[in-house]
Protein backbone atom coordinates (compact mmCIF):
# COMPACT_ATOMS: atom_id res chain seq x y z
CA UNK A 1 0.00 0.00 0.00
CA UNK A 2 1.41 3.34 -1.03
CA UNK A 3 2.08 6.05 1.50
CA UNK A 4 0.39 9.27 0.44
CA UNK A 5 2.86 11.98 -0.39
CA UNK A 6 2.59 15.18 -2.36
CA UNK A 7 4.00 15.62 -5.84
CA UNK A 8 7.54 16.87 -5.29
CA UNK A 9 9.78 18.81 -7.61
CA UNK A 10 13.48 18.31 -6.99
CA UNK A 11 16.43 20.36 -8.25
CA UNK A 12 19.01 18.41 -10.31
CA UNK A 13 21.57 18.67 -7.49
CA UNK A 14 19.07 17.21 -5.00
CA UNK A 15 19.36 20.17 -2.64
CA UNK A 16 16.01 21.91 -3.22
CA UNK A 17 12.61 20.23 -3.04
CA UNK A 18 9.25 21.91 -3.33
CA UNK A 19 5.66 20.72 -2.98
CA UNK A 20 2.20 22.09 -2.29
CA UNK A 21 0.40 21.28 0.93
CA UNK A 22 -3.28 21.12 0.03
CA UNK A 23 -5.65 22.35 2.70
CA UNK A 24 -9.34 23.01 3.01
CA UNK A 25 -8.80 26.72 3.38
CA UNK A 26 -5.65 27.25 1.32
CA UNK A 27 -2.69 25.62 -0.36
CA UNK A 28 0.76 26.25 1.04
CA UNK A 29 4.03 25.90 -0.82
CA UNK A 30 6.55 23.91 1.24
CA UNK A 31 10.25 23.61 0.63
CA UNK A 32 12.99 21.34 1.92
CA UNK A 33 16.55 22.56 1.47
CA UNK A 34 19.77 20.68 2.19
CA UNK A 35 22.36 23.23 3.28
CA UNK A 36 26.05 22.24 3.47
CA UNK A 37 27.64 22.56 6.89
CA UNK A 38 30.30 25.26 7.00
CA UNK A 39 32.73 23.23 9.06
CA UNK A 40 32.05 19.55 8.60
CA UNK A 41 32.76 18.08 5.19
CA UNK A 42 30.04 15.99 3.55
CA UNK A 43 27.44 17.00 6.13
CA UNK A 44 24.23 18.74 5.09
CA UNK A 45 21.47 20.25 7.21
CA UNK A 46 17.86 19.61 6.33
CA UNK A 47 15.78 22.73 6.74
CA UNK A 48 12.09 22.84 6.00
CA UNK A 49 9.37 25.44 5.97
CA UNK A 50 6.77 27.43 4.09
CA UNK A 51 7.79 29.44 1.06
CA UNK A 52 6.65 33.02 1.55
CA UNK A 53 5.42 35.32 -1.21
CA UNK A 54 8.85 36.94 -1.43
CA UNK A 55 10.61 33.54 -1.64
CA UNK A 56 11.93 33.38 1.85
CA UNK A 57 11.58 30.25 3.94
CA UNK A 58 9.50 30.44 7.12
CA UNK A 59 10.80 27.56 9.25
CA UNK A 60 8.40 28.35 12.10
CA UNK A 61 5.22 28.49 10.02
CA UNK A 62 2.18 26.53 11.16
CA UNK A 63 -0.25 26.12 8.29
CA UNK A 64 -2.86 23.97 10.09
CA UNK A 65 -3.80 22.22 6.86
CA UNK A 66 -4.54 18.99 8.77
CA UNK A 67 -2.07 17.14 6.56
CA UNK A 68 0.94 16.81 8.88
CA UNK A 69 1.45 13.10 8.18
CA UNK A 70 1.45 13.65 4.46
CA UNK A 71 3.82 16.59 4.81
CA UNK A 72 6.26 14.60 6.94
CA UNK A 73 6.10 11.64 4.57
CA UNK A 74 6.90 14.07 1.76
CA UNK A 75 9.83 15.51 3.72
CA UNK A 76 11.16 11.99 4.31
CA UNK A 77 10.72 11.33 0.62
CA UNK A 78 13.10 14.19 -0.15
CA UNK A 79 15.79 12.34 1.81
CA UNK A 80 15.56 9.46 -0.64
CA UNK A 81 15.90 11.86 -3.56
CA UNK A 82 18.83 13.66 -1.87
CA UNK A 83 20.72 10.42 -1.28
CA UNK A 84 20.01 9.15 -4.76
CA UNK A 85 21.91 12.14 -6.12
CA UNK A 86 24.38 12.53 -3.21
CA UNK A 87 24.95 8.95 -2.02
CA UNK A 88 28.12 9.66 -0.03
CA UNK A 89 26.83 12.64 1.93
CA UNK A 90 25.36 12.71 5.42
CA UNK A 91 22.35 14.65 6.67
CA UNK A 92 21.64 16.13 10.08
CA UNK A 93 18.22 17.40 10.95
CA UNK A 94 16.49 18.78 13.97
CA UNK A 95 13.18 20.53 14.32
CA UNK A 96 12.92 24.30 14.38
CA UNK A 97 11.19 23.71 17.71
CA UNK A 98 11.41 20.90 20.27
CA UNK A 99 7.88 19.85 19.39
CA UNK A 100 8.87 19.40 15.76
CA UNK A 101 11.96 17.40 16.74
CA UNK A 102 9.67 15.05 18.69
CA UNK A 103 7.38 14.85 15.69
CA UNK A 104 10.31 13.81 13.50
CA UNK A 105 11.07 11.05 15.99
CA UNK A 106 7.54 9.76 15.74
CA UNK A 107 7.72 9.77 11.97
CA UNK A 108 11.13 8.08 11.88
CA UNK A 109 9.90 5.45 14.33
CA UNK A 110 7.10 4.48 11.99
CA UNK A 111 9.39 4.25 9.01
CA UNK A 112 12.38 2.85 10.84
CA UNK A 113 11.80 -0.88 10.53
CA UNK A 114 11.90 -0.66 6.76
CA UNK A 115 14.16 2.35 6.38
CA UNK A 116 17.02 0.77 8.32
CA UNK A 117 17.58 -1.65 5.46
CA UNK A 118 18.74 1.24 3.31
CA UNK A 119 19.85 3.95 5.74
CA UNK A 120 21.84 4.30 8.92
CA UNK A 121 20.12 6.59 11.40
CA UNK A 122 21.67 7.89 14.61
CA UNK A 123 20.24 10.10 17.31
CA UNK A 124 22.09 12.96 19.03
CA UNK A 125 21.84 12.71 22.81
CA UNK A 126 21.89 15.51 25.38
CA UNK A 127 25.53 14.76 26.27
CA UNK A 128 26.54 15.24 22.61
CA UNK A 129 27.15 11.54 22.06
CA UNK A 130 25.31 9.64 19.35
CA UNK A 131 23.74 6.23 19.19
CA UNK A 132 21.82 4.14 16.66
CA UNK A 133 18.25 5.41 16.54
CA UNK A 134 16.00 4.03 19.26
CA UNK A 135 12.35 4.89 18.98
CA UNK A 136 11.92 5.23 22.72
CA UNK A 137 14.70 7.78 23.23
CA UNK A 138 14.45 11.55 23.00
CA UNK A 139 17.07 13.10 20.76
CA UNK A 140 18.23 16.61 20.00
CA UNK A 141 18.56 15.73 16.33
CA UNK A 142 19.18 12.95 13.86
CA UNK A 143 21.98 11.88 11.54
CA UNK A 144 21.24 9.81 8.49
CA UNK A 145 23.37 8.32 5.74
CA UNK A 146 22.69 5.94 2.92
CA UNK A 147 23.74 2.42 3.78
CA UNK A 148 26.18 1.11 1.22
CA UNK A 149 25.79 -2.50 0.23
CA UNK A 150 29.52 -3.22 0.21
CA UNK A 151 31.84 -1.71 2.77
CA UNK A 152 35.54 -2.39 3.27
Amino acid at each position, binding site marked *: *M*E*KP*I*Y*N*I*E*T*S*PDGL*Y*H*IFDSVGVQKNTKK*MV*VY*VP*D*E*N*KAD*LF*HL*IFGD*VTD*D*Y*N*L*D*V*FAISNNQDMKMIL*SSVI*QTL*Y*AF*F*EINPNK*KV*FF*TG*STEARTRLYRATISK*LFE*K*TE*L*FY*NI*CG*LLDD*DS*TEPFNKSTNY*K*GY*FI*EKRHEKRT
Partner: protein
Amino acid sequence: MKKELNFLGIDESKVKINPNIPKINLETPEIKSHLSKVSNLLKNVKIPF
Protein backbone atom coordinates in the same frame (compact mmCIF):
# COMPACT_ATOMS: atom_id res chain seq x y z
CA MET B 1 15.99 4.48 -5.52
CA LYS B 2 13.13 2.71 -7.27
CA LYS B 3 13.77 -0.53 -5.37
CA GLU B 4 13.83 1.35 -2.06
CA LEU B 5 10.72 3.35 -2.78
CA ASN B 6 8.78 0.33 -3.89
CA PHE B 7 9.79 -1.48 -0.73
CA LEU B 8 8.78 1.46 1.39
CA GLY B 9 5.47 1.71 -0.41
CA ILE B 10 6.18 5.12 -1.89
CA ASP B 11 5.18 6.11 -5.39
CA GLU B 12 8.32 7.06 -7.32
CA SER B 13 6.27 8.92 -9.91
CA LYS B 14 5.58 11.58 -7.29
CA VAL B 15 9.10 12.98 -7.66
CA LYS B 16 10.14 14.99 -10.72
CA ILE B 17 13.45 16.70 -11.41
CA ASN B 18 12.91 20.37 -12.16
CA PRO B 19 15.94 22.52 -13.03
CA ASN B 20 13.87 25.68 -12.55
CA ILE B 21 13.01 25.42 -8.87
CA PRO B 22 13.23 28.94 -7.48
CA LYS B 23 16.17 29.37 -5.12
CA ILE B 24 15.00 30.82 -1.87
CA ASN B 25 16.90 33.32 0.22
CA LEU B 26 18.90 31.48 2.89
CA GLU B 27 20.41 34.67 4.29
CA THR B 28 17.40 35.72 6.33
CA PRO B 29 17.81 36.24 10.09
CA GLU B 30 15.41 33.35 10.70
CA ILE B 31 17.40 30.85 8.62
CA LYS B 32 20.71 32.13 9.93
CA SER B 33 19.42 31.77 13.46
CA HIS B 34 18.28 28.20 12.82
CA LEU B 35 21.58 27.23 11.18
CA SER B 36 23.51 28.91 13.97
CA LYS B 37 21.52 26.91 16.51
CA VAL B 38 22.32 23.71 14.62
CA SER B 39 25.98 24.64 14.33
CA ASN B 40 26.16 25.20 18.09
CA LEU B 41 24.37 21.91 18.65
CA LEU B 42 27.07 20.08 16.68
CA LYS B 43 30.05 22.03 17.99
CA ASN B 44 31.35 19.21 20.17
CA VAL B 45 29.75 16.32 18.36
CA LYS B 46 31.67 13.59 16.59
CA ILE B 47 29.73 12.81 13.45
CA PRO B 48 28.73 9.13 13.46
CA PHE B 49 29.20 6.68 10.59
